[in-house]
């Protein structure tokens, strides 16, 4: 066991088996809760008249904490991509990101003192809420979807699906040789008009109404099969190839759908973060200069 101790010691927590939500025994959840509790308690205790808001000491404090938090939260994208040396864990960062990010909801609202209006201050607040809500969506997706992703994928990889589809296409082209014109055209629907990913809506819904391959399948079955002639055998072969292709397509598309959900919120989360940073700057500048 001694050798374990040595390795453990110089390896921080790489062996800990905990997800980002549980990280460190919910350390950041507790810290975030404490932060919220202190803020709320202070808000109630100070109970100043007029009600505390941005302009008071208490308000400044919360505002500063909030702004620093937003700045720090925005750095996550860089932390994620800068592979530096040193003991850090992106999981710990994400854990803190998620819980402190949610706590901003409380801090920001208290900082605003429930005063809203049509101005840059409320714009900043709204953008912040928007980022946070999208983040919550993302965290929820991260927590539940991977299991489905794994179940769908089994032990195959994306590259294998693409290769399978490509080689089925080659076989389909061969198999279509003995067919007559209309039938061959149906097969070409599959080989030439099938997109795997498709538009954002396709990917998100997993529905592919105009899918060339499914059209090819129904065309072929409409054109009729059966019998024992060589021609019928060729049609049977085509039909089974089309169905194999469909199965692979379905699997790939389920994968794509889940990956789309796991990623799409980032297309809100990140751009709105930039908008938020701009609005926040405007908010701070306007408070200091025009107040």
């Amino acid at each position, binding site marked *: 066991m*001694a*050798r*374990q101790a*040595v*390795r453990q010691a*110089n*390896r*921080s927590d*790489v*062996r*800990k*088996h*905990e*997800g*980002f939500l*549980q*990280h460190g025994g919910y350390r950041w959840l507790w810290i975030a809760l404490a932060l919220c509790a202190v803020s709320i308690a202070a808000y109630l205790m100070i109970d100043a008249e007029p009600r505390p808001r941005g302009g008071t000491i208490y308000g400044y404090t919360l505002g500063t904490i909030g702004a620093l938090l937003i700045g720090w939260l925005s750095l996550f994208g*860089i932390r*994620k*991509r*800068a*592979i530096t*040396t*040193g*003991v*850090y*864990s*992106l*999981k710990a*960062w*994400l854990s803190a990101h998620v819980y402190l990010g949610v706590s901003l909801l409380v801090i920001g609202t208290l900082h605003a003192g429930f005063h809203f209006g049509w101005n840059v201050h409320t714009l900043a607040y709204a953008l912040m809420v928007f980022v946070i809500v999208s983040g919550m969506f993302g965290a929820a997706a*991260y927590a539940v*979807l*991977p*299991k489905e*992703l*794994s179940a769908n*994928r*089994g*032990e*195959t*990889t*994306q*590259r*294998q699906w693409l*290769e*399978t589809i*490509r*080689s*089925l296409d*080659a*076989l389909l082209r061969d198999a279509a040789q003995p067919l007559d014109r209309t039938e061959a055209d149906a097969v070409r629907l599959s080989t030439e008009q099938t997109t795997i990913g498709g538009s954002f809506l396709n990917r998100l819904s997993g529905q592919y109404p105009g899918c060339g391959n499914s059209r090819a399948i129904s065309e072929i079955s409409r054109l009729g099969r059966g019998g024992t002639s060589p021609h019928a055998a060729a049609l049977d072969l085509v039909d089974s*190839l089309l169905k194999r292709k469909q199965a692979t397509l379905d699997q790939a598309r389920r994968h794509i759908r889940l*990956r789309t959900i*796991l990623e799409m919120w980032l297309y809100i989360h990140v751009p709105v973060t930039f908008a938020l940073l701009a609005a926040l700057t405007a908010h701070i500048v306007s408070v200091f200069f025009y107040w």
Partner: protein
Amino acid sequence: MADKVRIAIVGSGPAGLSAAAHAAKIGVSHVLLEKTDHLSDTIYSYQKKKYVMATPTQLVLRADLDFEAGYRETILDVWNKGIADGGVNVRYNAEVKGVSGEKGDFTLTLTNGDKVQAETIILSIGTQGNPNLMRCPGGDLPHVQYQLADPGAYIDEHIFIIGAGDAGIENALGLAADPAQANVVSIVNRSADFSRAKDANVTNLMAARDAGRVSTYTEASPAKVEGGWITLEIPDGETRLKCDRIIARLGSSPPRKFVESLGIEFTSDSRDAYPKLSPNFETTAPGVYVIGALAGYPLIKHCMNQGHDVVEYINGNVTLAPADEPILAQKLAHLPGGLPVAAWLEFLREKVEILNGLSPLQMREFLIDSEVRFYRADEVIFERNSIGSSLFGIASGSVKVEINAANPAITVPISAGSIFGEVGLISGRRRGSTIRASEDTIVIEIPRNAALKLMASVKEARDTVNRITTERTVLQIFGSGLTAHDVADVLAKSEVKEIKPGEAIIREGDESYDIYIVRRGSMVVEREIGGKPVFLNYIPAGQWAGEVSLVEGGKRNATVRAAIRSEVIKLDGDLFRILLNRKPELVARLRAEMSTRRRINEYIDKEKDKFSGVLDYYTSVAKFLVDQGVGEATDVLLIDERLCVGCDNCEKACADAHDGLSRLDREAGRTYANLHVPTSCRHCEHPHCMTDCPPNAIHRGPDGEVFIDNTCIGCGNCQRFCPYGVIRMDKPPPKKPGLASWLLFGMGPGPGEPDKAWKEANAKAGDGSHKQAIKCDMCSGIKGGPACVRACPTGAAIRVSPENFLSVALLDRGRE
């Protein structure tokens, strides 16, 4: 051929070529006999454009042919020209199948019946051996081939691959890779599954089969070959299929039989043994010399130097100092005493017991790989818990072992002539104690590979190491103030046994009470619950099994079987009980360990009704992990697919931390119960990849990582030997713009390994980098440890070692 030549050189690899070139140069009559119709078949068979490296760099080339690092094509051209210009007498298609006569008057018989007369023979046939042949009728037809140089060269053919080992599968996949070639590729496997090949290959083959690119015939064998057709014997009869080409990959038989038929003795029966040689490369058959890979020197430079030297020796210049003399001299220069190289070699050989049986030539080779070190009194040689698998022999002086970590004053001496460090060598585990020099001491440090080779080729060395290891293991494991004297009886009856994977050493319900020490490999402990085996525990090398029945009597309460190929030391129960009666401390020691094991047992007993599903789960996951090589791993990357969002940040981090090449493939690999074992190095206790690395470029580093250093020649052997398919051959991509330029201005390909198109577009010509073996190095030297794990945002990626993961931790997972 009537004329008798001075020297017949058999085999035109780098060794034979160089010998022939030198003979021609100094005007010695000679003939170079080559089996194929071209020179140097091994190198000729490298893949096209293979970059051939000229290691070791510090060794000077002493040959009449040029050789420097370069492409296969260039090197072969230079040699072809050198041989033609030098007036070398070559005979192609001249495979030697037998030799008769004696020194001064040999007759070599070729397969075509021709005879060649020679005074001496240089055997430089390498280690390739001969491919096993197709034995069915028609197996000798011209469209049956045993090699596939360029899979791209065949179009529109019906091709059958016979033999479904890695080579066969790789050929099949290569031929079917490009649909445009329109080959119809089939692979024929004698057994029902593809268990002989690597997982990665089998997975790819299955995918290719499912995609209709390759047909597979299992439990099938060729029955007859005709022009254009092959007949296969399949389980329900025979079938005749269209076939334009057959590629038989049935393995090859090493050339040893042939060599022995010439009256040449080998150093031992082991498969790794080499012919016995004098310092001048003469074998036990006078007048027959062996050089090159066959003599145990696989690097081209060595081969060529030996070719030169052996001709000099045969020509009477017996005092010529070998080309490695300066290297050895430099190695020994720092030692006190200032002896010449030969004297040092003799000194070491005589003093260190396990080296006694070596020949002067073997000693030279040995020293090239090893280091001779000088330590002053009290200097540390190695520390407890450091990683190391080299073996030390004490040439003069003595050392002391600090057996008690808490009190370094308690030491045990080891005297001159003996060895230490053997536990790390045998088990691949960390050093058990710190060792210091007691006085001024000279030791020889023998790296793992050289030590294994030594044990394989010299029986006395093997016996000595085994005897010493058993004694020390027993003393070290059981501790409690035992001395060698106490355990002498037990040791005298001890046995070292090799255990096959899955074989049981102890069976539940048996009445036996022997005790076993796992000396290499690992064991799993199972109990039958509700008619099914339940996984209880994992025993790594360096621990023992079977103490409960020994101490407390009664039937065996669990089954212990090998997780992987293992070696155990069996200690006789009766003798051990006598020892226990004399040594109550030892009983206490065993009981302490038993209590932890018993806790697991009781826990399982308690849980078994409530959680039978969990236990099943636990057992099946443990089994899956052991099958995936976790049983021989020291450190393995796992991905919990319940958490992995597929962002591939782990791969990107790996690439960014390592010259832009990722050493892991997250998606590939096996998955069970949401536990995914990605394609990434397991840092095996006894790495298979080290088996045959010509420049010895694979090592175990200070953190236990198995890594490949820069001397890698890119031969791909390690890739073939690694059963987990984790080694890739590649060269670093061009440097990309930094993260800030990408974030702000979108410059470069962004984080992670650049795609192929970018690599090609940005490649700089002649940047001097060539394909080398690339694998996970556990991020050694990178502060903070494994980048893949640090960069996983969700905590899905973890690195574990089997003894803390293959444990109750799995039970907790099952319950979630």
